[in-house]
């Protein structure tokens, strides 16, 4: 692996080793796990240190919350510092519910045995990959049923900022205050990026993981264009701050409260954006039986290169298992006619729906027989 020489302050670090991180092979970035190995694979190996990840919340916020918990739990598992900022609730509520890491299991390749004989014509084709990540090199799997209690968290660097407490204080601009607090945390706990002269001091370096949940919810301000502007400024400055320190941020925003153009600007101001759409409370398309929701990559991470890392497809579905958060490629149904493409999915849906209508209404399309 090519060792990139140490670059200036305010840049991606390489040539330093911090536990829980690994350098990327071609971009000179220092990557760290998001806590979800499948998501790391979608990002091209992990989240680079110094970037801001935006999670666009699902409407009930169940899964975005879980993603934040994974993010923080990964931090504790790797002995990174974690900093949780909340305004909707007390941070302790989340911090006492962080999942416990299971022992690292390598995903076994079940299809290794030669028991099944596949037709000769398909022999040479690559095996279809269902799940996104095969072997996680440095991430952890977490067991959601077991949580880490306060005792286990005692020897980790856990910080939190409870913005509910500041409601009584007269703070004009809560966003600016939050960023100032983050900056103070970075300076006092030595998470700033080392400058060129400090090369020898590598052993003291550590990463700060900042998670902000429900950012931009009505508790932060009315959902109008003025708040959107403040959010823009905050995100811009947060990214600037992240670039010049050893920090990685995961922010969840309830984007259904903002207009699509405002959301588009939020995406532009973050480095990477992932949207979660859960199926809770909605009629589920039978195709998605085993999944809990859809995951869409809204902005791809493009750092230190001309083009971003693009996964094979941009549409995924996720499933929350007890010990894993699995993200899988959405497969198209098999080709049955000349016109089958994305429309294949829609056709099946309308067929099933019309079949179940009480009047047994006639369908205009023929039944697709699988």
């Amino acid at each position, binding site marked *: 692996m090519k060792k990139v020489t140490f*670059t*200036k302050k*305010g*840049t*991606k670090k390489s040539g330093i080793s911090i536990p829980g991180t690994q350098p990327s092979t*071609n*971009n*000179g970035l220092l990557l760290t796990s998001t806590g979800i190995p499948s998501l790391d694979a979608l990002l091209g190996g992990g989240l680079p240190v*110094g970037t801001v990840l935006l999670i666009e919340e699902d409407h009930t916020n169940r899964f975005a919350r879980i993603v934040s918990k994974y993010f923080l739990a990964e931090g504790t598992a790797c002995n990174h510092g974690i900093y949780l900022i909340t305004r909707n609730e007390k941070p302790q509520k989340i911090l006492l519910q962080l999942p416990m890491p299971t022992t690292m299991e390598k995903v076994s390749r079940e299809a290794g045995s030669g028991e099944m004989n596949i037709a000769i014509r398909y022999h040479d084709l690559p095996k279809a990959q269902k799940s996104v990540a095969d072997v996680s090199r440095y991430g952890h799997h977490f067991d959601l049923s077991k949580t880490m209690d306060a005792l286990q968290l005692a020897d980790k660097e856990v910080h939190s900022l409870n913005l509910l407490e500041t409601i009584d204080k007269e703070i*004009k*601009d809560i966003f*600016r205050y939050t*960023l*100032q607090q983050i*900056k103070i945390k970075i300076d006092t706990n030595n998470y700033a990026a080392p400058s060129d002269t400090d090369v020898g001091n590598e052993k003291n370096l550590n990463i700060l993981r900042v998670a902000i949940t429900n950012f931009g919810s009505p508790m932060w301000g009315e959902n109008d*264009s*003025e708040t*959107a*502007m*403040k959010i*823009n*400024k905050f995100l*811009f*400055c947060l*990214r*600037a*701050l992240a*670039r*010049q320190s050893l920090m990685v941020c995961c922010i969840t925003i309830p984007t259904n409260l903002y*207009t699509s*153009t*405002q*959301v*588009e*600007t939020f995406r*532009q*101001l973050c480095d990477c954006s992932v949207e979660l759409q859960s199926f809770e409370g909605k009629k589920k398309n039978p195709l998605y039986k085993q999944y809990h929701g859809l995951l869409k990559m809204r902005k791809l991470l*493009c*750092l*230190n*290169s*001309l*083009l971003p890392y*693009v996964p094979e497809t*941009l549409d995924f579905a996720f499933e929350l298992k007890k010990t894993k958060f699995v993200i899988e490629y959405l497969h198209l149904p098999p080709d049955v006619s000349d016109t089958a493409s994305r429309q294949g999915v829609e056709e099946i849906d309308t067929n099933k729906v019309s079949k179940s209508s009480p009047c047994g209404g006639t369908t205009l399309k023929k039944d697709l027989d699988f």
Partner: protein
Amino acid sequence: MFEELNRLAGWSTEKLPDREVIFITDKGCNGTFLLHHFIALYLKAGQHVVLVTVEQSFAHYSVACGKLGANLTKSKTEGKLTHVDMMKAGLNEYLQESSPTDQLSKGFSNKTLEQLNDMIHDLVNSVPVDKKSIVIVDDLSLFLSLGFPIEDVITFYHKMKYITRTKPASFLTVLHLDGSAEDLPTLYPNFSYYGTCELKLEGLESGYSKDVHGTLEVIQKSMKNLRTVFERKVRQYKVTERTLHLFAPGTSKAVL
């Protein structure tokens, strides 16, 4: 630097854009990769670059242009490249400002663009007379999202045009058309009024495709016989690790 783009637009290391105001617009895709092309082009030609970064850090450009064969850190020490870090400046202003007045809409100060303009003027003036230079501002539309009034942005752009008139310098910037600022639609006509060359990028209407990333249109404005002439060339493009492939629409390798 992208050979195919050079051939399309008529540029080369010998024939650099001369006193041009180039702006890149993108819709449905991201056109910032073109900036790396220009940085590499000018540095390879031995001319000067003034890089004002708003959207990304210097290291990003350094590594990305390294893939195109331009060494930014070396050029910086040699004095061929000057870097103005707006990200850091903005952050410092944001953190320090604890004004008691209700200046809620100003994260940066009003004077930021003016100061930037003066700084750029000084930097361009310090370039040796026989050398050409290019001023690259990462992303001018970002200023709108950050709350700057549109008049300031247009005034800045106009002053950059003035620089290209008085010095052998060109100006380049990016305008993202997918943003949320209400004033964004008025920015585009102003840019195109003062601009001499537009690189218009559009994502495919059918969505993302691995083989064709979108359409690239080069619109060059020139005066012929007292009339303004727009020369348009449309291609489809695909970005790879180190270069840009251009081909006539519909003739991507994947299709043929």
